[in-house]
């Protein structure tokens, strides 16, 4: 039967010892060095997003027209000038840190909104009658083919440009992703034995949907949301880049790239650093999502758990 690796050797004898959840996560992270770096970086990013603006806003908005486009790596200057300065002489490093909050908030908000709505609709579409399901799926099709730029222009024109509205725009366009995934999973899980077992016990549809199916879909959705977080960040920055996203004086990384674009030939650092921030963050999210895919799957989790340092 299995030959790659013989199924868990300690099969019948003793039940695997179960360490606490936190230390397990830690051990699984240790097993994947890339994921560990990604997680550390993301924690750093989130920290910056939370405390950055309160600490650094003054620094980040202090203009100095005489220090325009100051080159990076002048380590004899103050630390915040190390990455250079922008067209108004504002230091780039604090600006990038301050911009983290908006960037992360928009992406996180959009992901949460779209994931919640999409998942709910997906659960309904997967469990309700064929007709309801069809209506929801057609709606998803409409949203899918609705140009996201048009959504952006419509929402931002009618409701005005704000972080909240940008979240809304981005989440609208991402709803179908969760909807489809959830529906597909529900359709598959619905026929699984444990759902029938719950039915036999007399569990209501609601209970089956939320206690059983959602519980099983959840890891998939977490993985998807992590991946989507990266996607939404890129989409947000693209919108800002086109001038229909966040508007100055608010800042996001995408907006910073866009603003630095005209100086690319003579002050590359204006666009480069925020670009790098986006790359590193999305890369971390992608890495983490790959790790989550394994870590959240009890069938595959052993791969990580076994790689952990001296265990059992």
């Amino acid at each position, binding site marked *: 039967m299995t030959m790659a690796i013989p199924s868990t050797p300690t099969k019948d004898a003793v039940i695997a010892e179960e360490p606490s959840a936190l230390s397990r996560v830690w051990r699984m992270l240790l097993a994947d060095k890339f994921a560990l770096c990604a997680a550390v970086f993301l924690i750093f990013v989130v920290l910056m997003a939370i405390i950055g603006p309160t600490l650094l806003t003054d620094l980040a908005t202090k*203009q100095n*027209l005489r220090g*325009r486009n100051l080159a990076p790596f002048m380590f004899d200057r103050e630390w915040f000038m190390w990455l250079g300065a922008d067209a108004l002489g504002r230091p780039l490093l604090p600006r990038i840190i301050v911009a983290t909050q908006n960037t992360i908030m928009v992406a996180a908000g959009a992901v949460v909104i779209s994931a919640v709505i999409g998942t709910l609709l997906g659960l309904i579409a997967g469990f309700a009658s064929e007709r309801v399901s069809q209506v929801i799926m057609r709606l998803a099709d409409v949203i899918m083919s609705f140009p996201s730029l048009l959504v952006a222009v419509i929402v931002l*024109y009618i409701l005005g440009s704000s972080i909240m509205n940008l979240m809304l725009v981005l989440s609208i366009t991402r709803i179908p992703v969760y909807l489809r995934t959830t529906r597909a999973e529900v359709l598959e899980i619905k026929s699984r034995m444990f759902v029938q077992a719950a039915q036999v016990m007399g569990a209501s549809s609601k209970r089956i949907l939320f206690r059983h199916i959602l519980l099983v879909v959840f890891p998939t959705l977490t993985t998807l949301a992590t991946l989507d977080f990266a996607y939404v960040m890129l989409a947000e920055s693209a919108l800002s880049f086109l*001038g229909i996203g966040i508007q100055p*004086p608010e800042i996001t990384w995408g907006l910073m790239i866009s*603003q630095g*674009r*005209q100086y690319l*030939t003579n002050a590359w650092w204006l666009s480069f650093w925020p670009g790098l921030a986006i790359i590193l963050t999305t890369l971390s999210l992608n890495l983490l999502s790959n790790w989550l895919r394994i870590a959240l799957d009890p069938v595959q989790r052993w791969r990580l758990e076994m790689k952990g340092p001296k265990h059992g």
Partner: protein
Amino acid sequence: MKTSQLLGALLGSVLALGTGIAPVQAATTDIKIVLPEEADLLEPCMATRSNIGRVIMENVSETLTELDVRGKEGVMPRLAEKWEQTGDGAWRFHLRQGVKFSDGKAFGAKDVKYSFDRIFSDKNICESRRYFGGMKFDVKVVDDNTIDFKVDPVQPILPLLLSLVTIVPEGTPLEFVREPIGTGPYKLTNWTPGQQIVLNARDDYWGKKPAVTKATYLFRSDPAVRAAMVQAGEADLAPSISQVEATNEKTDFSYLDSETVYLRIDGNIAPLNDVRVRKALNLAIDRQAFIGTLVPQDAVLATALVPPTTLGWNPDVKVFPFDPEQAKKLLEEAKAAGVPVDTPITVVARTANFPNVTEIMEAVQAQLQDVGFKIDLKFVEVAEHEVYYSKPFKDGRGPTIVAAMHDNSKGDPSFTMFFKYDSKGTQSGYADPKVDNLIARASAATGDERAKLWSQLFAYVHDDLVADALLFHMVGYSRVSERLDFKPSIATNGMLQLSEIGFKK
């Protein structure tokens, strides 16, 4: 039908791919011009719009008169050889003879009348119609080469206005056309939307044969790309590049481009209805600090909404100094007088309206905040900007300042002052009887009287009314290939006469 179209388009693009592999170095008198924005139409009566005018104005479609933008000659003859004002205020134009349209038809007075009628037709919306708002025209063909214009009210600057009206042959469809026929030195030979427009010199042009035999227009929205194309030899002329790119003395030229950046103040709403507040606003802005940093070195601080080359421009009006202390004092005074100076003021600017708009507006915001203003800076896209900029203004709006750019390269303030300051002007934030009166009188006057009245108006608006915060007369940069002999002018923004381009020997 649709599939065959699609197939045709596919095939076409395959061919385009195949043939375009090696850009053959064409005749040395052929040039390529790279523009920021493609014309979506090549309609002669829309030639006052810059993206259209740059291609066809005076190249394909000509006007009766022409404004001298390089010298001091004022209005010069073009298709009209001379003109005079008759006793009742009407104008008689004597047309040039022996002129032919590019389709071979002879040009005559009937074409001029037709061109006018077409502008006012309800089958189209010609942009040039806007210059004749509130005027009644009675156009009479006297003979083939003579035409009379009787306008109510009398128009002292009619010859100048006629420099804005392109002449099309009689029988041109009233609806917008995409292939203009004109009397100009060039004719349109190819237009592949999204890619290029090609003009070829005409052999049967009535005037001096221009040096450029063929002009290909390309379109790139990125200024860095446009500059790089000239550098790389992919184009010969990039009429507008950004200041940042203009680093090569040999190829890059600056020119005052008739665009004026200003902050339009809505003087109806407190606290901006108080002149002290408006003065404080002006004193708080360090205009000089922008020059050479965010605004090109050659830009000029504005004291009027029209460039200095305009009739009646008042050299005695002085730029507000940068005096934050005075500004703070004024604000305090106003506050003491019960003016709600703490009300947040919304500053609305348009994304990509002019170079560095974001940085400039952020800097202005910072400067205003330094003296104690509360400023919300808001960037909007063009459609929303228009809502703030033009009447009807929204009821219940808060104090609003709109950052805008105005273009008047036509030499006369009438194209500006009514719209921006008259109580009926669409972008005016004031209803000041003195302003209205001066505008009415100046518009009807001629000669030195006209200049004097405009001068008075400029001084009043700037010093007494403090209507707005004027910032800069902007400067454009062109990159011109070293083989071309061309100097851009104030008109280059809206018009690019190929006949002015020569070749260095």
